């Protein structure tokens, strides 16, 4: 670990301790009430005056919500699919998913409810911009990049599980990347937001990742410094925390983007006391013809986020390699048999 990383870890630890010791004072807004403020809910402030986003949140109920607008909703606006219609869609998605799991194996009734409840899902799809709910077209160079990556993989002479290095960063307990680390999965969808003067920290349950986001306006790291979760810088725009992340690594890059030009802009806004809206704009002129944005609510849940020490016993990885060797052997024997 470099000195810089060590210093960051130390600072993060100190900030975490500070943040947990400081009692969460529910300081109401210091602005004078206006007509707009009366109508709009105003988030509480931290003792040092930042909008207070702190708490444990989850987006489990957004599991099963497609990223892009399904064709059946063509010509319709996301905000118009609500009420009874939305409830019916979510209830049907839930029912089918539960039935899929039950099959002949009889999962006990109700196991799903506390753990993964799709009926609370808040929207019919995730992309809010462009308004048609679709990812903009790829630039020609992005299509070429994706093809080159696929060809390099094919021509490497490597199978899907020759070594642990052939497995995904997720299988290997390394990272789900950005924005992957906050995309809802069937479990592990808890996030804890902690604030201290000049910093916001996000703890991700799955994989057990932590982002420490400085708010002091310092420039991004040099272009040569790249990381899986990128280099994040935050600032406040009104009550919204805006986090801009760049400096990604090639491995695990989001949707085949160009790691040198991908800029992910997240907006965290506490819209009501128990909800933070998470909005993500994907900017990469080397990949898409226009930026695009998806969003979803993060809803408060009972904390704290329990430790998900992913490397504690990742026997699955070993078993995947072992399964692949067994398949190799079976294929070899079958070839011998056919040869005779």
């Amino acid at each position, binding site marked *: 670990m470099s000195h810089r990383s060590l210093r960051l870890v130390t600072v993060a630890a100190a900030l975490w301790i500070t943040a947990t010791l400081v009692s969460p004072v529910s300081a109401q807004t210091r602005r004078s009430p206006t007509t707009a403020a009366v109508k709009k809910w105003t988030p509480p402030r931290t003792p040092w005056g930042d909008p207070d986003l702190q708490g444990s949140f989850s987006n489990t109920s957004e599991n099963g919500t497609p990223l892009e607008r399904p064709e059946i909703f063509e010509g319709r606006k996301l905000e118009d699919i609500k009420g009874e219609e939305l409830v019916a869609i979510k209830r049907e998605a839930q029912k089918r*998913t539960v039935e899929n799991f039950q099959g002949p*194996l009889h999962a006990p009734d109700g196991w799903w409810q506390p753990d993964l409840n799709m009926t609370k899902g808040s929207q019919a799809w995730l992309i809010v911009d462009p308004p048609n709910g679709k990812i903009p077209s790829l630039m020609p160079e992005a299509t070429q990049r994706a093809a080159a990556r696929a060809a390099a993989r094919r021509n490497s002479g490597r199978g899907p599980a020759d070594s642990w290095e052939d497995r995904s960063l997720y299988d290997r307990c390394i990272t789900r990347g950005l924005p992957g680390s906050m995309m809802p999965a069937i479990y592990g969808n808890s996030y804890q937001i902690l604030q201290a003067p000049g910093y916001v920290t996000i703890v991700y349950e799955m994989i057990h990742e932590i982002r420490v986001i400085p708010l002091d306006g310092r420039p991004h790291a040099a272009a040569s410094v790249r990381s899986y979760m990128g280099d994040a810088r935050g600032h406040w725009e009104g009550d919204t925390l805006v986090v801009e992340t760049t400096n990604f690594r090639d491995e695990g890059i989001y949707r085949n983007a160009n790691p040198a030009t991908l800029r992910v802009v997240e907006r965290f806004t506490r819209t009501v006391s128990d909800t933070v809206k998470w909005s993500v704009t994907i900017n990469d002129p080397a990949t898409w013809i226009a930026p695009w944005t998806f969003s979803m609510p993060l809803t408060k849940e009972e904390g704290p986020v329990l430790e998900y020490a*992913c490397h504690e016993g990742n026997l699955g990885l070993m078993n995947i390699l072992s399964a692949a060797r067994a398949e190799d052997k079976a294929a070899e024997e079958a070839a011998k048999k056919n040869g005779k």
Partner: protein
Amino acid sequence: MRTITIVLLGALLLTAAPVWAHHAFAAEFDANKQVTLKGTIAKMDWINPHAWLHIDVKEADGSLTRWMIELGPPNSLLKRGWTKQSVPAGIEVTVVGYQSKDGAKRANGRDITLPNGKQLFAGSSGGTGAPYETK
């Protein structure tokens, strides 16, 4: 008509959104090797990213075979009602699951039936490609 539309929508939403779990079921387990194992709990490893239940299964000749059953992560099991007390060593359980592809005595657990008949859902991987999920 309305019902049909909704059913179609449900199917559409599901196919459009992959169910993510820590690793893909099909890389590790064989959907064609469903097993039902009756055994005595030797120990439970409450570890991440997946918990493992170790059970001793009595063979026809009276010998014991140790099986390892992959479960969901401890956090999920807790939310589904599992506790340390639900799976103490020494109790007899019935496990339904899928055996590993390499033929070892390991299986992906789906559900566990306790001596009192209570069932606990173990499912650790979504989108398994298991026969009943591809229908």
